[in-house]
């Protein structure tokens, strides 16, 4: 089944049916925010949100996870979790980031089983944005508020009902498995969805990003990095909220009488990031760290895996405590 219409009032039935063999997560109101939370039989879904504060990458690349334990003097790898999940309400920017991350966590030489198993076990149902925020700039980076990249199903909020369109075999299979709950969409409904997507796209301000990789390379020694980084406080907000950031480190920890190796998210903005055991740090200034962050996203990943590692979700812009604005950095670099 490729497309289906379901009334919002019927969603609880769909969730119940899916919950039989998968953990379902969806957008749930939590005070003023909407979070991606587990859906119970009575959980009310929220459709009144821009995006989750935290990026969806955390479902596949969590902030921390135990990868091995020391058992009888041997390091024993723990298996990745086998849980099947259905993620509902993922915005297209977050979905677009997932194939980028897969390129990092899986190549000809290495595979990260923890990321890959989780991704394999998940069905991503994106929800197209009808009202992008003024800080969103996905269209400036090859994305769209109705973008289809990275999801298994793209859903459109048509008011009282949702139109679901399968993008992958996994998506088709999910719709087919619950066919009875869906109606065939009318032409009017399909058109309404397309128009909603086009209107959302048109409403967004665009920033110029052509040639950003070459410009970033040329700007390596420019003074702008130290100037902007003068106010950077070296926290991890931009990195931890970014859908495409993926640096991680390992920490060996003693918990009671157990020794475990924990894989943790890391941020190049932290002063400790390149601190070597000798005490030497090749990046001594915050300008060097900021430059690394920008170069990694706009130059190095382009060379390594062929993608700019930014999907224009705007979280770094919104949540930076000192108002460092990536859109301004892109503009400065391009000059």
């Amino acid at each position: 089944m490729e497309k289906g219409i379901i009334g919002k009032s019927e969603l609880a039935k769909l969730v119940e049916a899916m919950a039989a063999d998968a953990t379902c997560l969806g957008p749930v109101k939590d005070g003023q925010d909407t979070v991606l939370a587990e859906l119970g039989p009575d959980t009310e879904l929220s459709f009144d949100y821009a995006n989750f504060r935290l990026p969806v990458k955390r479902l596949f690349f969590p902030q921390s996870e135990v990868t091995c334990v020391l058992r009888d003097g041997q390091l024993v790898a723990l298996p990745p979790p086998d849980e099947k999940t259905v993620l509902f309400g993922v915005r297209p920017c977050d979905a677009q980031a997932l194939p980028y991350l897969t390129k990092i966590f899986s190549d000809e030489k290495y595979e990260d089983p923890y990321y890959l198993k989780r991704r394999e076990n998940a069905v991503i149902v994106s929800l197209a944005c009808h009202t992008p925020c003024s800080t969103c700039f996905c269209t400036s980076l090859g994305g769209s508020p109705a973008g289809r990249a990275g999801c298994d199903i793209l859903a459109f909020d048509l008011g009282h009902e949702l139109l679901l369109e399968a993008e992958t075999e996994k998506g088709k299979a999910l719709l087919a498995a619950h066919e009875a709950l869906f109606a065939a969409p009318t032409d009017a409904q399909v058109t309404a969805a397309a128009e909603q997507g086009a209107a959302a796209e048109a409403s967004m301000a665009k920033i110029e990003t052509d040639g950003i990789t070459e410009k970033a390379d040329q700007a390596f020694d420019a003074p702008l990095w130290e100037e902007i980084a003068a106010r950077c406080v070296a926290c991890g907000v931009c990195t931890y909220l970014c859908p495409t950031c993926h640096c991680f480190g390992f920490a060996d920890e003693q918990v009671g009488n157990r020794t475990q190796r924990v894989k943790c998210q890391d941020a190049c903005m932290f002063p400790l990031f390149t601190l070597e055991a000798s005490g030497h740090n090749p990046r001594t200034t915050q300008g060097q760290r900021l430059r690394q962050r920008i170069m990694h996203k706009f130059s190095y990943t382009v060379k390594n895996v062929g993608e700019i590692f930014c999907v224009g979700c705007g979280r770094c812009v919104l949540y930076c405590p000192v108002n460092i604005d990536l859109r301004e950095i892109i503009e400065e670099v391009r000059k």
Partner: protein
Amino acid sequence: MTKMQDAQNRLRETVKDLFAQQKVDLVVGFEAGSLPLRTRVCFLTSADEADRLVWNAFCTNNPAVYIPRLFQRPASPREEYKPPKLGIVAKACDARAVHKLLEEHQAPRENVTIIGMPCRGMACRDKVVIQAGDEVVEAVESTEGAVEIKTRGGASHRFELQDLLQQACLDCPQAAPEHVDVQIEGASRRDTTRRYEGLKNFEAMSADQRWEYFRHELSKCIRCYACRQVCPTCYCKTCFADMAKPRWTGAGDGLSDVMFYHIGRLMHQAGRCVECDACTRACPVGIDLKTFTRKLGKDVERLFDYVPGLRPDEAPLLCAFEDDDTEEFVTDG
């Protein structure tokens, strides 16, 4: 011209003077931000940059956080130490933080010129967004005491600043910045009678309820350390939370590790936190840190009659002693 613009102009002229008299070679203040309801900290190195400075109800950052970094000694002893002559634009909370840092030898006193601003309190962005009910796309502080905004949906609203004040401003123990080197003329807030009113709900909770609230809030933590990094009095070169030998607390977002980090940081802030709420504003997941810092501050005030940064000549709390201090609590029993 609004009164706020008066103060802004007086600030700009004062800064130009300070540069001209060579009293400063670096000024940290606020300039326009790229988002509505925001300004950003700026670093000026000459008088001709002074017109970048702004002063309004969105000047929420605490610029004192940059002092340890600006006065850091070079890594090599062979390199000459050239500390700046710093001018720092300061609200009352910022000035308290500066004094705490001076007391802790983070900068030579003679190198810091505190420019006290007429502060009527700052607008809480969350309050504005809640009252507007929609994304704010434009915000202006118009005539004194009002904030005018436009929303994404096209609506316009006018709010009184007094209805938008941050909790830090409602709780501020000072009617205006004190112990400053230069005071920019203008009306400051004044009402210091509402101090700790915001704690009533938390204080009415039982111990179990408080623990549940603490647990619920901290379960959101992602260990980004924004709280620590924006805090002016958190400046350890290696934070205890980042140490591996000994590993005081795990690096991940497990609740036990998260709590240990936060409890540790709070305890390190006891007697030092100036309650500017920079930590709460910086937190990307909306943890109600200010309730915990404020409760700690209230306990410190109640137990020791001490408010950090309020009376700079006072001995610092918990790190000063006299030879004849009682030792009964150690030797008894």
